């Protein structure tokens, strides 16, 4: 059914209700009719059965009484006597006969079978029963006895009906009723029925329910009509109230150009439904779109991942190409940067379209330690893409000791600040220009400097530009960007500085306090001498990077053994027969062509304590969580070209852990001057990772205050539990301030312990 408008809808519902009513009515009438007919049939059958039962009872009763009489000596003697004796016995015989208490027997006759009448009493009637009386040894026996007499009973139909009624009070004589045959079963127990009249009397069984059923049917009928009518008007009223009337109102108001009555509940509901339906529709479309974009994002991510490794190799190589002319080196570096930008932008696009990026999980009011170099590289890649139509050169310089520096920021806001500052730099350039970004580290701070060679800002306007409300050189600027950035940086505990010279350019600096590296991050790679380095990566470029880095790090008396694996299965197979005591595993995460990833291999081989994950997906929160649970460190893959490698003594005089680089450097220098082999660590995590490569009798000194609320005595307890027994606490505090620490040998000062 096609409903074209509201009237059609109402008409259709009305027709459907009417049709349903007619169908239900017809079916109900039919059911009632059939039920009534069935009921009537059953009732008549039951009535007939009741009459037959009453007739059987009557017959049985009559037969029983006749049997009693016929079995008496008086009866038998009377029949077997001559006329004289019968005359004498008559009173007694009559007395016997009168014991028959069946009113409908109005008379009787007894005669011999050859016709001699022996007894005659009462009235005759055409309705009669002729019984043969048979005796065997003085007892009635219709089967085996000698039948010499005939007993004729004359019946009164009127009294017979009353007799049946006395048996079943429901039976009543009625002139209009159909005559019902009595004695349908001609059986008289101790007699042979010789002949029986066809007696049918107009009787019926009065059943109380016969009329009540009509009442019930009528009641059901009326109830059905009422119910159907009520339903019809209820549905119609409901439809009018919630659909038709509101739609009519909407139509009327729209026609009249009036506003809809928003206080009308029905209209609000319709509006709500319409909005919901639209929302659902949009959600479905968005889900489809997201699905589609997620597919593209995954592909982009894969491409970016694949590109990053060769770019990292290119960057590493370019650092060593001193023999090439500078313009060639710059060309190679720019080409590598361009490729890196493509990879970064692909990844950026992917993260925007998916929820896998860790940034999406972080609310704007949360601060956490972030790798600053990563954000700078990402933003500059975006800007190169964004302003590719302009003749502006973007360059980034990251100091080797600054690459792995963290600061506590909100990642989203930090990117926004970086982006705004770089936009300002670009907008300050008229035609050709250069934007330079540099990351350096200085005394516990990290400095991000953005410098352009644009028009600059007059000196007198600088304070107002920083405070906000004033823009310079921007057509549609609100003047809020710089001041907002300053407030944000200051909120992170940082500082902002700006220096500008008109027609020369502007430079801004973001100075942020350096944060402790997260546990998962490997700032430096310590490799004990004579260690086996196992590298698993599907990209040969990464293998080459590590090879070159180790070659550069190893001195003449040092040696490491590098074993390369490109497929996890090869490593698994190798590990079955080779399990070096001292080995560091550098494991890639994504391994093309294998169902396993690097973490799967680490788990299978149970080598987490000596493994480092080298991955471009280090920002993936899930991967970080797994690494933290396995107590594994991560090296971002593009950081692998810059990570410092230090080959450390395999048999040191002692190991010293202190968060002060000055002190550890001093101890190290002093040791070298005195021919001692001392290994120093500033980072607890690096220390804990490396200490496992040394025997438990190694002499160890640990600072009591390691910063970031880490206590030296706790680290000492950790070592003690692993079996190390030669542990000293090296502290600037008075030893009396410490309680007894059973797991350390002693508490010493910060002076070099061995002379």
């Amino acid at each position: 059914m096609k409903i074209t408008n509201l009237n059609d809808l109402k008409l259709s519902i009305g027709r459907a209700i009417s049709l349903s009513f007619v169908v239900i009515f017809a079916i109900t009438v039919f059911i009632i009719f059939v039920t009534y007919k069935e009921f009537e049939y059953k009732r008549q059958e039951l009535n007939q059965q009741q009459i037959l039962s009453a007739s059987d009872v009557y017959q049985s009763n009559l037969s029983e009484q006749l049997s009693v009489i016929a079995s008496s000596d008086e009866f038998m003697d009377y029949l077997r006597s001559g006329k004289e004796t019968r005359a004498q016995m008559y009173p007694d015989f009559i007395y016997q006969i009168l014991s028959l208490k069946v009113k409908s027997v109005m008379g009787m006759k007894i005669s011999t079978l050859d016709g001699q009448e022996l007894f005659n009493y009462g009235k005759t009637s055409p309705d009669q029963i002729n019984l043969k009386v048979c005796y065997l040894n003085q007892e009635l026996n219709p089967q085996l006895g000698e039948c010499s007499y005939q007993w004729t009973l004359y019946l009164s139909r009127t009294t017979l009906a009353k007799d049946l009624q006395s048996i079943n009070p429901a039976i009543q004589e009625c002139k209009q009723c159909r005559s019902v045959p009595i004695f349908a079963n001609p059986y008289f127990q101790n007699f042979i029925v010789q002949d029986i009249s066809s007696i049918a009397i107009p009787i019926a069984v009065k059943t109380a329910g016969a009329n009540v059923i009509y009442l019930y049917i009528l009641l059901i009928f009326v109830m059905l009509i009422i119910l159907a009518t009520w339903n019809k008007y209820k549905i119609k009223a409901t439809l009018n109230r919630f659909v038709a009337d509101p739609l009519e109102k909407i139509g009327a108001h729209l026609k009249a150009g009036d506003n809809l009555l928003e206080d009308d509940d029905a209209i609000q509901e319709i509006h709500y439904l319409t909005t919901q339906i639209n929302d659902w529709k949009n959600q479905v479309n968005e889900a489809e779109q997201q699905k589609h974009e997620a597919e593209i994002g995954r592909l982009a991510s894969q491409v970016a991942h694949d590109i990053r490794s060769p770019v990292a190799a290119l960057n590493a190589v370019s650092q060593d190409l001193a023999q090439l002319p500078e313009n060639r080196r710059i060309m190679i570096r720019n080409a590598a940067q361009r490729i890196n930008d493509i990879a970064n932008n692909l990844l950026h696009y992917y993260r925007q379209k998916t929820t896998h990026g860790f940034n999406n999980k972080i609310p704007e009011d949360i601060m956490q330690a972030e790798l600053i170099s990563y954000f700078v590289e990402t933003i500059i890649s975006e800007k190169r893409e964004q302003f590719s139509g302009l003749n502006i050169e973007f360059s980034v310089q990251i100091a080797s000791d600054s690459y792995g520096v963290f600061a506590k920021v909100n990642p989203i806001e930090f990117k926004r600040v970086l982006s705004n500052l770089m936009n300002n730099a670009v907008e300050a350039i008229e035609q050709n220009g250069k934007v330079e970004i540099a990351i350096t580290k200085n005394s516990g701070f990290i400095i991000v400097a953005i410098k352009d060679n644009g028009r600059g800002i007059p000196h007198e306007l600088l304070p107002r530009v920083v405070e906000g409300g004033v823009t310079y050189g921007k057509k549609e600027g609100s003047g809020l960007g710089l001041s907002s950035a300053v407030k944000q940086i200051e909120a992170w505990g940082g500082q902002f500085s700006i220096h500008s010279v008109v027609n020369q350019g502007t430079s801004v600096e973001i100075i942020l306090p350096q944060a402790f590296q997260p546990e998962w991050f490997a700032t430096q790679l310590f490799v004990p001498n004579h260690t086996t380095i196992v590298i698993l990566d599907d990209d040969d470029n990464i293998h080459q990077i590590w090879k070159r880095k180790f070659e550069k790090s190893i001195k003449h008396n040092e040696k490491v053994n590098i074993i390369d694996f490109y497929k996890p299965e090869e490593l698994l197979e190798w590990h079955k027969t080779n399990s070096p005591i001292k080995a560091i595993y550098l494991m890639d995460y994504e391994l093309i062509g294998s169902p396993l990833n690097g973490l799967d291999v680490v788990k299978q081989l149970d080598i987490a304590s000596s493994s480092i994950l080298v991955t471009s997906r280090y920002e993936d929160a899930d991967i970080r969580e797994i690494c933290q649970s396995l107590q594994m460190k991560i090296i971002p893959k593009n950081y692998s070209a810059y990570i410092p490698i230090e080959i450390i003594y395999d048999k040191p005089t002692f190991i010293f852990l202190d968060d002060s680089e000055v002190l550890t450097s001093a101890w190290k220098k002093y040791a070298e001057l005195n021919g001692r082999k001392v290994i120093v660590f500033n980072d607890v995590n690096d220390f804990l990772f490396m200490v496992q490569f040394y025997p438990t009798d190694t002499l160890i000194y640990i600072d009591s205050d390691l910063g970031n609320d880490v206590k030296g005595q706790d680290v000492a307890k950790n070592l003690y539990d692993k079996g190390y027994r030669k542990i000293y606490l090296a502290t600037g505090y008075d030893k009396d301030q410490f309680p007894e620490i059973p797991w350390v040998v002693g508490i010493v000062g910060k002076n070099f312990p061995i002379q």
Partner: protein
Amino acid sequence: MPIVSGANLPVVNVLSWWGYLDNPQVTKLVQTTCHANLSYDEYYSNAEFLRRFNHEKQNYDVIIFSNTIYGLVKNQIGVTNSNLWRQSDAYNKIVRQHYLASKYSPNIDYFELSVNGFLSNPKNISVLPSNDLTSIFNKAGKNTVIIVDDPVEVAKLIALAMNKDPNASITSSLTLANFVKIIQGNNVYITNEQDSSLYNNPNFAVSFNWSGDAMNILKNNNNSYVFLIHPKLSYITADLLAQLNNKPAVGCVASVLSSRKVLNIVQNQDFYFSPYVDTSKVTDPQFKLIYKKFVAMLPTLSWDDTVSAKEYAQLNNTWKRIKIYLAKQSDS
């Protein structure tokens, strides 16, 4: 012969075995001879006779009953001046000897004689004169066996079968154990009804009947059965006719009923033998055949015994036990 109207004639009331006086000729002969109307009541067994006689003997003028129970009623039927006994002079010689030996009262005559024997269905059994009682019942197997409903008669049969002393009391012969031993689990019925459908049943094998009943059954079954007067087990029973008062009509009627003329009529009716043993008037050939056998065996056959009231009571008691036993057997 004047025309006699029965309306105002005196009535002579007779108690008789069933079927003896049914012939209208007898009634008519009584009416014309004695100017009296004959009214007769019938009974089917000695027990029934005794019950009716004991209760209503004052109502009866003449009684016809079995010789076996004569001892139970003889003290109640004495009439001193009756000449009824004179009719015995015309009896068959052997019969008369027996009548005289029995020393009946003068108001008593023989009514009819009977010989009991074995009526058999040749399809199911062959009863030979040489068979003893046990072998006859044995031959019957699971077929129907019918025995006359009379303890005295059965006691006599068992006594003969057991070769008991003829002068000894027969009461000791009829015991439940003896009876059970003889019937050997046969399907046994006890009845005097000759029209019972038992005889029409194809399973009917053999019955021990009075000869008159046997004849009626033979006729009802187209003479398909065989009646054997067994040389050892059959014996003669007599029915007596007693005049109970001296009313003129009664003496006349008693004389007429015990006369050769009437008994010649009656014996063709009920197929018992007249004490006059007159075969010349017998019309039914089958009956005539049996009659001749009876006559031939008359000298050798034993006669029934008259029992005392005590003996009868004892026999009747045993007989009831036997009936109960059979009823139980039938139910199981």
